[in-house]
């Protein structure tokens, strides 16, 4: 249920950067989200359509780049992917490992349109 506050944060960061760049419109937003972040893309999209209405971001497309969760075993150094749940090293069965990727949660870039400046 926390997708609404997440979506509001995305909108606020996008608008701030769009204004700084003198955008007339935001056409797309790239988000990088690790597998270990508990966010449902569909819900974010649903809220997005509602809360971006009437702003520079209205109609902007949300692009989600999902990063798989990659772990490294402390005992045999094997690198392995996991889903949302915790699983042991597939090579040696050890539970001792550290996270290499999967916790990413940021707004990477926005694509904007600008009205052409007229030089005289």
């Amino acid at each position, binding site marked *: *249920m*926390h997708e*609404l*506050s*997440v979506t509001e*944060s*995305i909108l*606020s*960061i*996008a608008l701030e*950067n*769009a204004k700084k*760049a003198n*955008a*007339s419109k935001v*056409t797309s937003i790239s*988000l990088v989200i690790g597998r*270990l*972040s*508990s966010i449902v893309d569909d819900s974010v999209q649903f809220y997005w359509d509602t809360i971006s209405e009437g702003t520079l971001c209205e109609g902007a497309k949300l692009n989600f780049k999902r990063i798989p969760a990659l772990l490294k075993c402390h005992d045999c150094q094997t690198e392995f992917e996991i889903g949302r*749940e*915790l699983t042991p090293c597939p090579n040696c069965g050890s*539970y*001792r*490992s550290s996270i290499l990727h999967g916790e990413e*949660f*940021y*707004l*990477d*870039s*926005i*694509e*904007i*349109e*600008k*009205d*052409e400046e007229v030089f005289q």
Partner: protein
Amino acid sequence: MSAIRVPVVEKILSANDRMAQENRNLLDDHHVFSINIMASPGAGKTSFILQTIKHLTNEMKIGVIEGDTAPVTIDADKVIKAGMPAVQINTGGDCHLEAAMLSDGLNQMPLEGLDVLIVENVGNLICPAAWALGTHINLLVASVPEGDDKPYKYPNIYRGLNVLIINKTDLTPYVEYDLDYFRKGVEMLNPGLITFPLSCRTGEGVDAWVDWLRTQVKQYRQG
């Protein structure tokens, strides 16, 4: 019209992180040691807070900020009855507390003379893990009847903890619960995490937790 890509690279929850830092500064200005208590609904957060207050009532002033999804003051009333200040914050249906909500709560809480501030987060094992509040430590109350597989199913919340409580140990004979399996999962997510098994009902094990808290508060004051 021309399409332009503008690089941003900003953490989605950066505004929350900034507000959390402001909360931390306010607490530090008043020398108040603060604890964010998380748990699933029914794990015994409120009983745990009341036990803690009972043990420290003659030596510390403990304020409690209660986060609830609905405007009910059941938990806050219990704290006030135990003789400590309590503030209720209603999240309006949201599944977790955010730093801005805690900031509202802090504005209503008399911080002068307070030794410890306890923040009771909304009962939930997923969402509270993502929002920093600015408290000094994160604590989880896990409980025996919830099952021994919780670290495996909700890894995020265990990763961010400073201390773990295993409540309702008095129920161990009645439910299937493999403490070694539970602890193996915790060890993988948060190696060396300090853990206190206890029972808020019988009081067993509460002393060890309270001693630890006393030491933390002392060390915090000494800077």
